[in-house]
């Protein structure tokens, strides 16, 4: 900076130079007006950075692809509407290989290297369980989109929240009455042998017992398994209902081999759509599923009573009426789960706005703001339906669907309102220290 009082300085020059600078600055700002005008009321125009822990490779890759597309679409829509607190939202993506150890490393990378504001988007429960303790130690808000009961069970920490997707325990509470009333009471369960599958095993066994039913056999299958016929002979002959939920790259093989095993004399079948997420229901070998039932978090096929919010969500993510990519009908989405990323990003936005979030120093305020949330009405922000968030357990509740497979498409036959999916709290995270 030049000093006019300094000997030798010409007093007129600096003033004129400063005036010219101001003019030039104003001119440049005016030229760029549409770019920054949306963020004018922000204290800082630096982007809010959300670390997206993506299952880009490994057994969760199909989910990862669609979680990524949904996340990008939501970020685009949020930014087009002015961002968060007047600041643009930036997604920082890291692949965790669907691996718990790598997951913890990714969380650490987010906090120390990328310096993100929050981490988000993990699905597979073993990765969540592997990563959440590290997020807690680093005091990084960690918004998971996982379905596992590990959040609400009290197993994790104050920094880990699941506000965008319902958990397995509430899902099985919703479907157990349907299974017992409509399909049968002697159930054989087939589930993946890790935390998510164990949630199904434990809570469905309880829920069906409460309906007067009984689980007569439990078949745990490693999620990396590629050949399934050898497990099926353990299904007891008196089974009335098969309850299946499977994940991993071989889900199509699993369902096909189940059909080949049963042949013409299959029992009633109830599955979680997880067994066929990202799989075309008209694939060869799946004909035997006609007339069977599936749980769906959000109906893959457009229903007659489609809401405008579902229409908006499909249009923005690029999904056709059959739940496949609008640009490639063979690229089937993980429609029953991926809305969770969309809704979670909107909750991060709402939480940051309520907390007046300005930077990493406000992370605790953000967690407290989300904990204070309750009602989330059905809207463009919550296209799956209205939700109720329980700040004590860090878990959200919402409606569930049972769909029947007919003519190669799924149609909703029962929608269970969110009030029927409650269970008593098992933890109060708000009493735990930060």
């Amino acid at each position, binding site marked *: 900076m030049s000093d006019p009082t300094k000997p030798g300085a010409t007093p007129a020059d600096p003033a004129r130079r400063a005036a010219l600078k101001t003019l030039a600055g104003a001119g440049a700002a005016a030229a760029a007006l549409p770019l920054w005008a949306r963020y004018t009321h922000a204290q800082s125009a630096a982007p809010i950075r959300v670390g997206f822990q993506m299952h880009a490779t490994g057994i969760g890759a199909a989910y*990862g692809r669609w979680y990524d597309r949904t996340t990008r679409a939501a970020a685009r829509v949020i930014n087009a509407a002015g961002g968060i607190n007047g600041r643009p939202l930036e997604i920082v993506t890291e692949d965790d290989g669907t691996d718990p150890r790598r997951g913890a490393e990714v969380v650490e990378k987010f906090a120390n290297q990328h310096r993100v504001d929050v981490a988000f988007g993990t699905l597979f429960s073993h990765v969540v369980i592997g990563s959440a303790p590290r997020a807690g130690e680093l005091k990084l808000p960690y918004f998971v989109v996982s379905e596992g009961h590990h959040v609400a069970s009290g197993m994790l920490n104050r920094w880990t929240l699941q506000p965008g997707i319902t958990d397995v325990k509430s899902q099985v509470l919703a479907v157990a009455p349907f299974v017992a009333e409509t399909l049968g009471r002697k159930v054989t369960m087939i589930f993946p042998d890790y935390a998510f599958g164990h949630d199904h095993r434990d809570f469905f066994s309880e829920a069906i017992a409460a309906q007067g039913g009984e689980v007569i056999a439990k078949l745990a299958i490693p999620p990396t398994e590629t050949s399934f016929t050898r497990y099926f*002979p353990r*299904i007891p002959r008196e089974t009335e209902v098969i309850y299946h939920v499977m994940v991993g790259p071989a889900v*199509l093989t699993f369902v096909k081999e189940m059909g080949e*095993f049963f042949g013409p004399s299959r029992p009633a079948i109830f599955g979680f759509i997880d067994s066929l997420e990202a799989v075309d229901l008209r694939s060869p*070998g799946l004909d035997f599923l006609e007339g069977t039932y599936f749980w769906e978090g959000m109906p893959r096929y457009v229903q007659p009573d489609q809401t405008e919010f579902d229409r908006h969500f499909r249009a923005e993510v690029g999904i056709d009426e059959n739940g496949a990519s609008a640009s490639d009908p063979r690229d089937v989405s993980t429609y029953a789960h991926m809305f969770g990323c969309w809704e979670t990003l909107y909750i991060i936005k709402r939480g940051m706005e309520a907390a007046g979030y300005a930077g990493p120093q406000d992370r605790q305020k953000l967690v407290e703001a989300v904990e204070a949330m309750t009602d989330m009405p059905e809207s463009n922000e919550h296209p799956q339906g209205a939700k109720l968030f329980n700040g004590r357990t860090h878990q959200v509740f919402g409606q569930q669907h049972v769909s029947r497979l007919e003519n190669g498409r799924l149609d909703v036959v029962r929608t269970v309102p969110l009030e029927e999916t409650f269970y008593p709290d098992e933890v109060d995270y708000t009493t735990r220290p930060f």
Partner: protein
Amino acid sequence: MEFGPYLMLAALEGAVTAAVLALMAAGLSLVFGVMRVVNVAHGEFYMLGAVLAFVVAGMAGGGALGFVAALVAVPLIVGALAVAADVTVLKRVGYDPERTIVATIGILYILQQVTLMGYGPDARPVAAPFNQRIALPWVEWGAGGPSLYWPWGLSITSYKLFVIGAAVVVLAGLWVLMTRTRIGLVMRATQLDRETAQAFGIPVERVYALVFGLGAGLAALAGVLIVPIQQAHYLMGGDALLLSFIVVIIGGLGSLPGTLIAALLIGLSDGILSVFFSPTLAKIVATLLVALVLVFRPQGLMGKAPR
């Protein structure tokens, strides 16, 4: 399920595993026998077979035609790729046992990651040319003598039978090739003594390239055959490689009949143990077998003791 039909189902499942395993392990064993190269990338050639089957079948319009096109073209493509790898990599490191292990580990990662970058992380199916479910009968000794009935769940598909048949035909062809043809004679001569073979005018390096290509082609063929049952996935080579090593060690490195016997042993024990107990126990038993063979008969069941 009753014991009899249960055992039969387990044996049939095991036979399919054994068929695919025998093809793969025969390739691995051939490469080791002739070239003394422990090919760690063998599982990736199997994976490439499955992935390329998806690509070729798609290009040929899918259906039965697509599958036949894949069955013919894919082993040739993968074989050619392996020949190129042999000429550009293995030859340059002089077929030195330690260095070839490191080199093939490198090839493993290159193939796996290129597949991940090009084909993606998804598992994709190839439609079987035919896939009828065949319910199988079981004999019951009733009051009026033996009678047939169809137990619940006891079945196999026509395609799985085809896989078993195809593996038998290919292995028989390989045996004829090795024992009844001139090229087989040349390979065996090279296996017996590389220097003497060269002194007798055998182009050893060309034989090596051919053998490496043939071994990879067998793995790729196994991949093409399995892909309508399982699906093509970029990580599928790992387990397959492990099982083939187990088979080759038990059977005796470089011995084709030993490989076949070991593949049947491992395939059937895997099928039966995993049906009756658990797949984990089946893996434990297979690994235990390897340990026992290494302790009590290090050259393998049919291997010849080193001279």
